[in-house]
């Protein structure tokens, strides 16, 4: 087979470096989508189901407002989870031991228990005791603390991957500990943690659907309600999947873009 024809279907790789020409990429994407379309159109064609999009379409406003709430909650808890995760990761390296172990216990407790339980406990017990009645605030904070534990582990691993010799070099040129983090550690950590961080953010957006159990009127809860009103399950939940994809795909693409921008061999 000629080299060009071979490259339509196969990537040529050398170590970690791959060379994929544009036509190869186009053909690859189209055939993958075609294959998926084939499987699903077969599955749906075998389904004896009376589609009723009209009933669901009447409630389109609920989808829009739910999607916007999910967007707002995700964005807010995404920012908060980064701050919490960073603080927890740094606390792991704190010379003050009670703080260090608080960080460790936090990470283990959150990662070891279901989000569902955390939402219930935070809302009905903790928030109630501290007089926070707003379910949107509690929901956002709970999500932020949940994702923060995972993000803290991602950041911690990133920090530890910066070698001892780099830290020595930072010390001999006279950087303060703060400057060392700011100019030497974090720029390198950023690049290394972007892919897992993007994955975590995508999870965070999907996990926000669990806030429906404390009646936060987000995307999933609205879809459930539309389903209850119309008995059109598929028509209610398929837009849900598309709505979440519309949020997670851009994050994934942004992460790939940033990864390319920060790329350098090390």
């Amino acid at each position: 087979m000629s080299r060009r024809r071979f490259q339509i279907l196969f990537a040529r790789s050398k170590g970690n470096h791959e060379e994929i020409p544009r036509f190869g990429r186009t053909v690859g994407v189209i055939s993958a989508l075609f294959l998926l379309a084939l499987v699903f159109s077969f599955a749906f064609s075998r389904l004896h189901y009376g589609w009723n999009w009209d009933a669901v379409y009447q409630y389109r406003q609920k989808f829009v407002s739910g999607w916007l709430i999910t967007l707002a909650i995700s964005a807010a808890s995404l920012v908060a989870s980064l701050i919490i995760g960073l603080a927890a990761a740094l606390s792991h390296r704190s010379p003050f031991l009670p703080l260090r172990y608080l960080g460790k216990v936090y990470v283990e407790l959150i990662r070891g228990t279901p989000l569902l339980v955390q939402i219930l406990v935070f809302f009905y017990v903790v928030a109630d005791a501290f007089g926070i009645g707003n379910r949107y605030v509690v929901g956002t904070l709970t999500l932020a603390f949940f994702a923060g534990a995972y993000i803290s582990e991602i950041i911690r691993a990133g920090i530890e991957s910066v070698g001892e010799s780099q830290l020595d070099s930072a010390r001999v040129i006279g950087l303060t500990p703060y400057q060392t983090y700011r100019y030497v550690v974090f720029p390198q950590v950023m690049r290394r943690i972007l892919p897992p961080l993007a994955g975590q953010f995508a999870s965070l957006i999907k996990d926000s659907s669990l806030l429906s159990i404390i009646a936060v009127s987000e995307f999933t809860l609205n879809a459930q309600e539309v389903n209850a009103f119309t008995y059109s399950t598929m028509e209610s939940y398929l837009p849900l999947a598309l709505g979440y994809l519309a949020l997670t795909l851009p994050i994934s693409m942004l992460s790939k873009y940033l990864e390319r921008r920060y790329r350098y061999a090390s």
Partner: protein
Amino acid sequence: MRLRLDGVVKRFDGVTALDGISLSLSGARSIALIGPSGGGKSTLLRVLAGLELPDQGGVEIDDVPLPTDGESLISYRRSIGTVFQSYNLFPHLTALENVTLPLVQAHGYAKEAANGYAMELLDRFQLASHAGKRPYELSGGQQQRVAIVRAVAIKPRFLLFDEPTSALDPEMTAEVLDLIAELRAQGREFIIVTHEMGFAKRVADHGIFLGAGKIVEEGPAAELFDTPHTAELKAFLGKVLKY
């Protein structure tokens, strides 16, 4: 420089790296630390660089004791230039940015002034064409030369080299040693840990032979290398000069 060490002891997890080093030197402009691996050379250099605090004993450089608290250690480190065996440069910064980082962050240069000054230095050491490259795009010898430029740029009181050529092949070793010899000719003071005996003999005024954490023999470099007195140094020189 005047160097005074008084019974310096340094232990790591029960292993004694420096076992009571005492020394008084004045007037030496370049000092070579030689000896077998694990003999304590690098540890002594790290103490002088303000990276490790001795467990016992005192160090005085130009009659000023080495500081022990964090703040003064940072300003002490800012006053000297240290170059390690490898990985001196930060991989996410270009050669130019590696040189300007300490100028801007630790020495109060404005960004433009630092850039201009660093470019001038890189140019003087034939590295200007590499200014925009990241370390992975440079050869090992070029990386070390940029690291030396970075150390020189801050106008240090003296330089410390910890086996600056041990990770390089012979050709690159030569280009780095040429640069150090050039600095020597400019009258810059330094202490170097090295396995390159011919080079040490050529550039150093004073030699110190360390073994098992102690000073076994020391003296003017010419004497030390040509007429070693102790059996240890004779055996060491015999081995390293054999090939």
